[in-house]
């Protein structure tokens, strides 16, 4: 090889190594509500460990994973699908095709969508471990703990409910930090969960059902008293989400609101005590 080429190759190797080292993550938990338009996709990442909740309606979730994961990390430790509706699962198809996913937390529900079959096939070829969530289940991943609050067995036995009502609801704990993820649950389910006294005080809440009036109940907010409420919603969506009632409820309680349609990805970081909004 001529010296000129040799130099270029060495320079490129050096740059790549430096890039890889600089991409190394910090020692904090980051939670990112990805801007995927009308839908949900929430990434929690701590070091090399990632938990992705839902995948949004299209491949935009890939941009989010690409942005917040080091380029050499091709593994997502846990993917949670709250419920099989297109605005929550479609993006997961490419995630399963491109990333190694260790565990897939998903309820045994059927979707009539053609694309759901495609997702199931992608999960199969990924050889991920498939786990069905159930109230009371606890999953530990490093320093992160996930407590499943819903669906309960009695709900799963009822076959005729709206898909939204089967949503996986969970509490994520990291040190003293707590966050509540609510999928697309509605008032009836909220009442049921509240009746069991399993809602704790949290720092962060993912507002149910993109801020629909058929999601958030005042009682849920009063029981959890979050400091930050995140609404994952698309700009000018045809449903009119988020509904004014919900925004007013949050304002009246003095809860800070962040919306993906207004500010793109909503990212917070925490060291286990309090949290900081990274894109205020």
């Amino acid at each position, binding site marked *: 090889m001529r010296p000129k080429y040799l130099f270029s*190759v060495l320079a490129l190797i050096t740059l790549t190594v430096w890039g890889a080292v600089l991409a190394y993550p910090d020692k904090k938990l980051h939670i990112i509500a990805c801007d995927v338009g009308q839908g949900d996709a929430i990434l929690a990442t701590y070091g090399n460990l990632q938990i992705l909740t839902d995948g949004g309606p299209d491949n935009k979730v*890939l941009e989010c994973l690409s*942005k917040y994961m080091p*380029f050499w990390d091709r593994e997502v430790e846990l993917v949670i699908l709250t419920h099989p509706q297109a605005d929550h699962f*479609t993006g997961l198809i490419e995630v399963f095709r*491109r990333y190694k996913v260790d565990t897939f937390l998903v309820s045994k529900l059927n979707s009539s969508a053609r694309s759901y079959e495609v997702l199931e096939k992608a999960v199969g070829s990924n050889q991920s471990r498939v786990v069905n969530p159930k109230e009371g289940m606890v999953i530990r991943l490093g320093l992160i703990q996930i407590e499943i609050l819903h669906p309960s067995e009695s709900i799963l036995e009822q076959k005729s409910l709206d898909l939204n009502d089967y949503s996986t609801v969970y509490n994520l704990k990291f040190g003293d930090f707590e966050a509540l993820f609510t999928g697309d649950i509605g008032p009836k389910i909220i009442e049921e969960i509240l009746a069991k006294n399993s809602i704790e005080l949290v720092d962060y809440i993912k507002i149910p059902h993109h801020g629909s009036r058929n999601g958030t109940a005042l009682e849920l907010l009063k029981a959890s008293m979050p400091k930050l409420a995140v609404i994952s919603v698309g700009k000018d969506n045809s449903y009119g989400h988020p509904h004014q009632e919900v925004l007013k409820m949050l304002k009246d309680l003095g809860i800070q609101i962040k919306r993906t349609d207004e500010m793109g990805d909503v990212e917070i970081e925490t060291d286990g005590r309090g949290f900081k909004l990274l894109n205020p």
Partner: protein
Amino acid sequence: MKFLFWGLLFFVALLRILTFKTPVTDGQKVRISTKVLQEPIRQQNYQRLVLENLIVYLDPFPEVYYGDEVVVEGVVSQNKLVSAKLLSVKENQGILPNFRKRLINFYQDSLPEPHASLIAGITLGSKGSLGKDFWDKLKNTGVVHVVVASGTNITLVAGFLVGITTFLLKRRLAIVFVLVGIWLYAVLSGFDAPIVRAAIMGSLVFTAQEVGRLSQSFRVLVITGLLMLIIKPAWIRDLGFILSFVATGSLIVFQERINKKIQILPAVIREGMSTSLAAQIGVAPILFVTFGSFNILSPIINALVLWSVPLIMVISGVAGLVGLLFPFLGRMILYLTYPLTSWFVFVVDFFG
């Protein structure tokens, strides 16, 4: 004799174009059974195909890939097939489409976005998986030609093969090898009009060299265009075809002259700058008429990124071939493109 040759060629091409008609009329319900010859473009709510010169929008699932056999039903409306339904799709198990799919998968499994799609675009002309935002930015900055299959790809492949084969083989054999390589690549990269154009021109130039005739680029360009139109008159309305010829023509006429005028610029970006400026002279008016806009900064943006394209293509080409046999080693080689694609993405983000 010469006059007769050119006259005949022009006459046949003209005849083909004038007698060529879309075989169906508006409002007619048709069933098309064909092979997918252009890579489908995917969006959230649809995938867009071109079948028998008709634009077809289908539901995003099941997914259709380049090379697949499909049966589609719909109603013809101008150049579109509306309310189209996919009746069946059969995956193409042929060696080349399969090879292409595996290469793209290798890139997508190894790198994040938009790096993976950028590489798939640069090496294979695959634009199907590019995110809409990034695609728009590429268009706004005037560098989108890099990720669609274009003549540059053929030039690079040919150059790479010439570099290797002339070391190893006798001249005559080397040229056969290069020609086969060019056409294999043309099929691999989707057989779009610009690729076919470059493949024909490249083949003509190489063969002419071999039989000892000095080829004149402009003449070769015109012969190639006429030949293509005789084979497939529908190309006359293909924007890629038109842009490819106008750009190449402008390059032949202006590039050398511009290059001489901008000697002050450093060599790394001079080539990209003169190429882009020369091509723009012909292309800019067409872009302006078709899209209603073009970026005045485009030559500068091109100059900033074009130098990285051959490097990205060669490294990811080699990484892909190695990676299909030894995935880990291939991935390590592919990582070397990361600083280059990062620069590319940075520039496009900055100006887009």
